[in-house]
């Protein structure tokens, strides 16, 4: 037992240290990459004939991307920390908050060490990025024209890091209140490596097959929300229900924290969506506006749906609706106008409400905090809605959608949705199985009853 713990302590520290050996030259990340080289290495097919004008860092664009990175960090911590943390029972408050917080720490290191390279590094067979950028080797302070022509390459890297962080943190809602902390850590690392990093490459990496197919996903409907939500479904199914589910009262222990978390998610999501323009200006502004509008509409829609269906508008409902709206507008945010965003938002509120309230009840799985109901369903709706409402009038770099005269756009959208679902569902099941065999995924009954805070962390959240 004590050995077991020791093992973890050691493994962790060793892992971190060991990686240094693998990295081609400590501190070499600082060597700025000449843009032409970057272009040549990263995306030969798009290399221009004549030497391009050397990309120059724009202070305004960089300010916006850095600000956006900070905002997206705030989505995970304290955003998700509070949103999810407030929704569990008191005895699991710290354990659940810790999930989001430690993912931020774990993936921040993983991404710098090899995650970014696997996702955005030089393409290998349209499936994954190569390890050339391991340890940020060659990821310097000059712009990489493929990913952001006017900001330092590292600015794009850190912005993307925040996405890599929040995605596994969203899954947390599905297995809340019953997962073993050590198993959770291993699961997260494997999931980030084998599901998130490749999927991000498929959709956003130069050479990724879904990107090549023309699938539109501005800020991560497939990569972030379908992947996390559907993986959440897999987790809920695999782990089974919480003790007492359906019999005991499992009311949230602190809705003010949850509402605060939802508000911070909204706040930070401006960075998520508008920052995905990787520049300040018109496109960022448009994404900002539709993000706000869809979110508001979705919160109202969930609230009114609930009011009509169950008789009372709830605060948790309004907060959940807002998050559903944020999810659904994400893939569309760089391609649609404000009026479209209202419809997307209303759809998100209504669909996710019925998913979380009716569907879950019918199908009987215990998705503790509705990771699937909100992110899986909301992300799927958003990816499809992008195919419906996208318009070149908003973003000439995008495409028109079905309602703007281009039904063909639905094909890559649906392919992207299907591919993400399959990867998430199958991949997550395999990872869960492996981790379960090695170390066991779920806490014991006694530990579950006493709560994660005491059983996993020897701590008590409140002395009030």
């Amino acid at each position, binding site marked *: 037992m004590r050995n077991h713990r020791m093992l973890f302590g050691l493994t962790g520290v060793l892992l971190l240290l060991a990686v240094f050996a693998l990295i081609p030259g400590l501190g070499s990340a600082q060597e700025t990459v000449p843009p032409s080289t970057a272009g040549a290495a990263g995306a030969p097919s798009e290399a221009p004939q004549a030497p391009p004008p050397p990309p120059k860092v724009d202070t305004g664009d960089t300010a916006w991307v850095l600000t956006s990175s900070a905002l997206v960090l705030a989505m995970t911590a304290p955003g998700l920390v509070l949103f999810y943390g407030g929704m569990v029972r008191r005895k699991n408050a710290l354990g659940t908050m810790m999930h989001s917080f430690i993912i931020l720490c774990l993936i921040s290191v993983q991404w710098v060490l090899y995650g970014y390279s696997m996702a955005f590094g030089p393409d290998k067979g349209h499936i994954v990025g190569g390890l050339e950028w391991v340890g940020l080797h060659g990821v310097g302070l000059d712009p990489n024209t493929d990913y952001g022509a006017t900001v330092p390459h590292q600015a794009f890297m850190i912005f993307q890091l925040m996405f890599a962080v929040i995605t596994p943190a969203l899954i947390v809602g599905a297995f809340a209140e019953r997962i073993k902390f050590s198993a959770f850590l291993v699961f997260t690392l494997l999931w980030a490596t084998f599901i998130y990093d490749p999927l991000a490459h498929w959709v956003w990496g130069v050479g990724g097959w879904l990107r090549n197919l023309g699938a539109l996903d501005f800020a991560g409907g497939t990569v972030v929300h379908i992947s996390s939500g559907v993986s959440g479904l897999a987790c809920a199914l695999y782990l089974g229900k919480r003790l007492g589910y359906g019999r005991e009262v499992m009311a949230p222990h602190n809705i003010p924290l949850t509402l605060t978390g939802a508000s911070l998610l909204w706040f930070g999501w401006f960075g998520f969506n508008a920052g995905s323009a990787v520049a300040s200006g018109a496109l960022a502004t448009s994404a900002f506006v539709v993000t706000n509008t869809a979110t508001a509409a979705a919160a109202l829609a969930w609230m009114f749906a609930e009011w009509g269906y*169950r008789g009372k508008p709830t605060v948790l409902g309004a907060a959940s609706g807002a998050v559903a709206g944020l999810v659904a507008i994400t893939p569309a945010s760089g391609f649609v106008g404000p009026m479209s965003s209202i419809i997307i938002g209303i759809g998100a509120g209504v669909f996710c409400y019925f998913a979380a309230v009716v569907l879950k009840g019918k199908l009987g799985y215990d998705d503790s905090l509705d990771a699937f109901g909100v992110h899986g369903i909301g992300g799927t709706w958003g990816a499809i809605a992008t195919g419906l409402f996208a318009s070149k009038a908003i973003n000439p770099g995008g495409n028109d959608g079905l309602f703007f005269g281009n039904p063909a756009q639905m094909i890559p959208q649906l392919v992207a949705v299907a591919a993400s679902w399959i990867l998430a569902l199958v991949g997550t099941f395999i990872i869960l199985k492996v981790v379960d065999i090695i170390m066991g995924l779920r806490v014991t009954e006694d530990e579950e009853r006493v709560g994660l805070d005491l059983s996993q962390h020897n701590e008590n959240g409140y002395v009030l």
Partner: protein
Amino acid sequence: MKKIEAIIKPFKLDEVKEALSEIGIQGMTVSEVKGFGRQKGHKETYRGAEYAIEFVPKIKIEVVVSNALADRAIQAIVSKAKTGTIGDGKIFVTDLSQAVRIRTGESGDSAL
């Protein structure tokens, strides 16, 4: 000496406390409890999960009085805590065999 325990509606505490003071009772001990009884509780809904909460917040007043004062104390409580609607609560009386004031070691009625 008698120990009187009264379970009352929370918003009646102040009135009851004053009434007891008026008849010369100088101390009491109060705690928050949850009551189950004829008064029905309320419904709560969280993401579609509906819970019937059967326990209703109540205040328990414990007051120890000399035998002489007991009836007046009970009267005072009943008259102030009563609203006439279900859930007004109960009064339970037990005999006390001893009372001690920690500060002085006094015991019996003079400990109160």
